[in-house]
């Protein structure tokens, strides 16, 4: 506290490095591990076409439910499909669902949250009521209910994830906006004659976006989990598309015959969620000044 003030003076300002946050992120061992895992997973998902030894729907009738062999490094499933290849393609499904739905939720949540926070009070009450009712459903229950109505598909999964995660973003955006609304710099902008749109997009968004991005990075593993979970229940991707959840589900059916499918579906899933969570935690430590102190 003392120390910070000592730097202030009247002929120059405190200068700081632009890259200091990135350096801090890499210095944090968990952040570095997370970053490496995430990069690996993203790389293998993008390059699945080139690095996967087999097509994800190609049968090998002779080798069914086999353990690891030189031909099939992680064994095969009950139809003789190569589990390693299916895992690699499964990563692609998981990541694309996560990316699409998290960015949609972030944008929608940011917009609605700011609207609730900065707009008229009545609109705020209505939006908060809607957010709270959505949050009142346990995610999976909500998903089950929606899927009964519209039937299972990848788009349904994305829609369900977006609907259930938007309130989280909106809530943060709203509380931040409400807090900012009465700060002196927003009052100062208003006193200069700035209109609401300008205040919102030019002054509130830059201050609200950071916690939302952190939440998004923490949400990616959650979304991956939901997708895998629904596919595990047979309510996500449609066969023969490979998903970590469907591999696990199949593995669960044959768990007494071979553990390899459960491992091939589960381990990448665990690694991915761990990687993103570590990265998210490290990001939060770097950017959230509240926790940065120590």
């Amino acid at each position, binding site marked *: *506290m*003392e*120390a910070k*003030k*000592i730097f*202030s*003076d009247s*002929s120059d300002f405190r200068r700081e490095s632009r890259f200091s946050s990135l350096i801090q992120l890499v210095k944090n061992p968990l952040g570095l591990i997370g970053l490496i895992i995430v990069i690996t997973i993203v790389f293998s998902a993008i390059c699945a076409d080139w690095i996967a030894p087999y097509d994800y729907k190609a049968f090998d009738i002779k080798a069914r439910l086999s353990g690891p062999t030189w031909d099939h490094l992680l064994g095969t499933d009950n139809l003789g499909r190569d589990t390693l290849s299916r895992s690699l393609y499964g990563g692609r499904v998981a990541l694309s669902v996560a990316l699409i739905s998290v960015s949609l939720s972030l944008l929608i949540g940011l917009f609605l949250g700011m609207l609730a926070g900065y707009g008229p009070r009545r609109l705020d009450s209505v939006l908060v009521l809607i957010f709270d009712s959505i949050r009142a459903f346990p995610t999976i229950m909500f998903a089950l209910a929606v899927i009964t109505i519209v039937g299972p598909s990848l788009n349904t999964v994305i829609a369900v994830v977006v609907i259930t995660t938007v309130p989280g973003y909106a809530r943060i955006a709203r509380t931040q906006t409400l807090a900012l609304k009465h700060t002196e710099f927003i009052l100062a902008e208003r006193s200069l004659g700035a209109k609401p749109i300008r205040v919102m997009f030019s002054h509130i968004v830059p201050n609200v976006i950071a916690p939302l991005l952190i939440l998004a990075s923490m949400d990616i593993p959650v979304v991956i989990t939901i997708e895998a979970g629904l596919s595990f229940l047979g309510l996500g991707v449609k066969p023969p598309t490979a998903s970590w959840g469907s591999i696990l589900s199949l593995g669960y059916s044959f768990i007494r015959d071979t553990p390899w499918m459960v491992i091939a579906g589960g381990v990448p899933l665990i690694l991915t969620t761990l990687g993103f969570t570590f990265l998210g935690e490290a990001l939060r430590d770097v950017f959230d000044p509240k926790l940065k102190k120590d």
Partner: protein
Amino acid sequence: MSNFNNDPVIDISNLSVDFQTQRGDVRALRNVNLTIPQNKTVGIVGESGCGKSTLINSILRLLASNASITSGSIRFLDTNILEMTDSELNDLRGQKISMVFQDPMTALNPVITVGKQMIDILFRDSHSRNAKREKARDMLQMVGIPDAEDRLDDYPHQFSGGMRQRICIAMALMMNPALLIADEPTTALDVTLEAQVIHLLQELKNSFQCSILFVSHNLGLIAELCDEVVVMYAGEVVEQGDVFDLFHSPAHPYTQRLLECDPARIEKSTDELPTISGRVPDLIELPPGCIFSPRCVSKFEPCSTQPPPEFVVNEHHKVRCFLSQDG
């Protein structure tokens, strides 16, 4: 340095404190000498960044984890606080030295009643709970809280800012400490409440027979309350002495300028208020000579090359400035 009473309560000699930061070591306190005589009120005055908070945190050993004491000693009666064990420290805190913080709104625990917090301070006593409660009530009455008995069961948020600061003062005096440290206790309060709190401190100081270390940036409050004054600038004690001496014949140019700048001292309305030009030096790379020389209007040859030692103006008045070299 005044030493006319018997042993001083606090005797700080040659204290230096560094803070480790990413940019390098901030030399927050350098060679500080300071004594607090018994039953006297000593005021520390200085602007932000002068090291006054670091100094009081060192006395109670409450420094942040990136701070290190590089030299010196802080003697409380006859023991060095810096060499105390944890249990000795806990005996010292609250019982022999207590503290009133700057912001009364955050200084009390919001989920524990005021009475309970006061009684908790008496944890060393073997008295019954009722006796402790009576003591707490008496203390609240003494600091001017109406309906003290009932209000013991209230939570801090049910009191106004001024009342909370009174409660903090009551808590600080619960154990009859030898030294009360007051860190800008009125900065968060309005003028009329400030006057009330200062008045209260004046009254209590007579009835409680304790020394007070009063930290403030407000010269008026120091003049009002203190017997002796210590002026700090950029981590050093630049001048210290009897309050009358120091206010009427300040020896250090910084003290002189500081007094000139105080708008409360300027009787006539003026168009151009005096200021101190320049800036507080970077405490990572210190200037070679006197710490104030870059901003000093009366600097001469030795000022920018060698740091001034402590010169004695009179028995109760010392200053670190070459201008006082010849006495």
